[in-house]
């Protein structure tokens, strides 16, 4: 500081620093000009188009296509240098500190919801990747540079582990022209990259023989995971069984990959019969994982020959038998059914659950039906509920919804039930025609709507939500015409079925101020879902239109601040703050 002060006391000696400072200003503008210079299309920078590619959900095809077309229109020659810069981006401590501090002070984030949207190196890398995705094979000139990036050391940081993934995705987008680079990656020092290369090579190698020859050396890789990936990759080359099966049989001898090899052989069906003796041997002598996989493969490639081996293992109660049981159910369901039914009676809950899982894939017969009814009374709630659901679905199939309410009123040749299904496209409100029909039916529709609102599907009284809620929305559409139903709806709100209580309350919302006592009553309902919905409707729904009547709800809102349900408490806190800030402050809500 003393030096600077001395410098400013002697103005005439400041010539050199002045030049330095002029240089600084010029450099500043130079840097600004260079940094903001970017290829553009329709006045927007390449980065902003890439950002659009990144931000746009896949469903918004038009917006996504617009951004991708813009990147293509900029062209590979102009775009690639910038894209490579983005992919090569690395974090620096100052930027990381700024990102961290910005998030802490809530002025920046990575989504663009706050004032600033800082990008970490990984964000830039993914932006670059989007560019490669848009350019596709046109980005081929960058393949070698991307390959060289693979040779860099990737530190263990969470983000840095993703950097190879970005480069991989870029090369995948380039496709066939990246073939030499992917071949080179087979010998990369990073096992994750070697694994990727094994998989990716399949999509750029046209000939299966060449592909197997290329990846075969990886079966001797020092890394177990790489060897497993190689076995899996060879295992799906079912068009070349003469090449793949011997390799897989050989791989059965490697204890680290024998499970993968045994599983992979199942893909070759009878072409893998040559492996039957060695697989049988593995069932006898292999460890649990290998023995299970071997038996599963035996069942798939030769079910009848393998069945005695299976029954033998079942008798020995091998712990891995469940997986093979599933395989046998797929190929010989009739043979397995007695075993499944017997296991459904087992005292072991886990065994009963697995047996139930298998049983529900069987076609409907009286035997399955009776087993399901037994399961519906199971002491395990998971099995019992699953069986009840299965039987309810069956009932629904045998009794279609349209025949459930035969005495409903009609309008213009369509029954009430049909009008209730007539919605605006996208599952929204009733169509104007449906609304008109409901109004025309008026009070005549009330008995039928009440039946629908309280309908529970036999045999286990499950509430069919769609039928119940359709009736509630029809009541809302009726508006004040629904008033005669209010006494009945008042009683239904005390129903012990949560769905009925909830839909009865919602059904009153079309009746204007008449709905307010129902919503206030809802705040004291025994079901948390009803209390929550009542709070929501009083704040933002109908309650907003009748602020004077809503004041009567404030003491109930205050009580909900101590509700036993966390969600209700949280909701009541927010809603009270909204409808009566003064009371909210009084109760310590800021």
């Amino acid at each position: 500081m003393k030096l600077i002060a001395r410098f400013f006391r002697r103005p005439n000696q400041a010539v050199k620093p002045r030049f330095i400072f002029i240089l600084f200003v010029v450099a500043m503008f130079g840097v600004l000009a260079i940094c903001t210079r970017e290829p553009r299309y329709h006045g927007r920078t390449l980065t902003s188009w890439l950002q659009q590619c990144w931000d746009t959900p896949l469903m918004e095809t038009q917006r996504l296509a617009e951004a991708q077309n813009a990147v293509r229109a900029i062209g590979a020659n102009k775009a690639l240098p910038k894209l490579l810069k983005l992919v090569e981006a690395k974090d620096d401590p100052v930027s990381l500190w700024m990102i961290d501090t910005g998030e802490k002070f809530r002025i920046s984030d990575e989504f663009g919801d706050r004032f600033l949207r800082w990008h970490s190196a990984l964000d830039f890398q993914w932006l670059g990747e989007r560019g490669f995705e848009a350019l596709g094979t046109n980005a081929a000139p960058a393949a070698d540079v991307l390959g060289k990036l693979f040779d860099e050391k990737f530190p263990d940081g969470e983000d840095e582990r993703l950097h190879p993934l970005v480069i991989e995705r870029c090369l995948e987008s380039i496709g066939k022209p990246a073939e030499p680079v992917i071949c080179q990656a087979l010998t990369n020092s990073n096992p994750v990259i070697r694994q990727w290369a094994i998989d990716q090579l399949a999509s750029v190698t046209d000939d299966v023989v060449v592909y197997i020859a290329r990846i075969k050396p990886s079966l001797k890789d020092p890394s177990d995971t790489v060897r497993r990936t190689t076995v899996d990759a060879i295992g799906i080359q079912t068009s070349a069984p003469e090449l793949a099966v011997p390799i897989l049989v050989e791989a059965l001898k490697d204890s680290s990959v024998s499970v993968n090899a045994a599983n992979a052989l199942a893909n070759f069906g009878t072409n893998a019969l040559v492996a039957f003796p060695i697989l049988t041997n593995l069932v006898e002598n292999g460890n649990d994982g290998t023995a299970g996989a071997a038996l599963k493969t035996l069942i798939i490639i030769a079910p009848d020959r393998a069945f005695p081996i299976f029954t033998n293992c079942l008798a020995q109660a091998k712990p891995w038998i469940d997986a093979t049981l599933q395989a046998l159910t797929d190929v010989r369901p009739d043979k397995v059914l007695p075993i499944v039914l017997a296991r459904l009676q087992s005292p072991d809950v886990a065994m009963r659950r697995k047996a139930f899982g298998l049983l529900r894939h069987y076609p409907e017969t009286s035997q399955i039906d009776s087993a399901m009814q037994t399961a519906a009374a199971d002491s395990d709630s998971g099995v019992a509920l699953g069986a009840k659901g299965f039987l309810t679905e069956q009932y629904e199939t045998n009794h279609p919804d349209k025949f459930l309410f035969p005495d409903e009123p009609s309008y213009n040749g369509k029954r009430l039930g049909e009008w209730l299904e007539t919605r605006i496209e996208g599952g929204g409100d009733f169509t104007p025609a449906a609304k008109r029909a409901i109004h025309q039916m008026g009070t005549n529709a009330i008995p039928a709507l009440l039946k629908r609102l309280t309908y529970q599907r036999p045999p286990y009284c499950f509430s069919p939500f769609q039928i119940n809620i359709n009736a509630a929305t029809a009541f809302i559409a009726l508006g004040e015409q629904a008033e005669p139903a209010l006494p009945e709806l008042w009683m239904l709100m005390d129903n012990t079925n949560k769905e009925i209580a909830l839909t009865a309350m919602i059904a009153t919302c079309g009746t204007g101020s008449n709905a307010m006592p129902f919503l206030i009553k809802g705040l004291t309902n025994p079901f948390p879902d009803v209390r929550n919905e009542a709070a929501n409707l009083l704040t933002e729904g109908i309650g907003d239109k009748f602020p004077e009547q809503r004041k009567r709800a404030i003491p109930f809102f205050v009580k909900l601040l101590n509700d036993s349900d966390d969600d209700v408490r949280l909701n009541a806190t927010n809603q009270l703050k909204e409808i009566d800030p003064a009371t909210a402050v009084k109760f310590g809500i800021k």
Partner: protein
Amino acid sequence: MKTKNYFRRLGFFAAILFCSFSAQADPIALPEKSVTPQITFLICFSILLETACILFLLRRFRKPRFFILWLLGLHLITYPAFLGFLWQFQDMRPAFAAALGEGLIVIIEGTLIYLICRYVQMKQNLPRASLIRCWLISLAGNACSLIAFPLLTNLYDFISRNA
């Protein structure tokens, strides 16, 4: 009739400015600690530090009365401008964007200091500061506050932890 249209337009802009769509949101009250005191502390201290530094370096040059108020008022322009630059450069690496933004602010602030010292009436026998000197002083002031910012952050954290 013209007046009527004028008011209609005003009404339209007012409706855009004060529309209450955000009030339709469904907020969930999360127990978040307020960051306003910390941000206020950091900004105020950084600006004060920068002002003190500039005052010190300009003490032998001609300057208007209440120069400290001029300098503080200056930040009503330069601070939003700095945020604007950051917003403009947010597609760059954060460190680079901040450096570039600070650089531009140094130039703007230096120019404004020069203009204040030159055109505001004052009765002093001291030499006038040149434009380049003002830029250099602004650079020193901004560097000072920039360096102090992380230190002040740590200081605030330390105080709030031990208070």
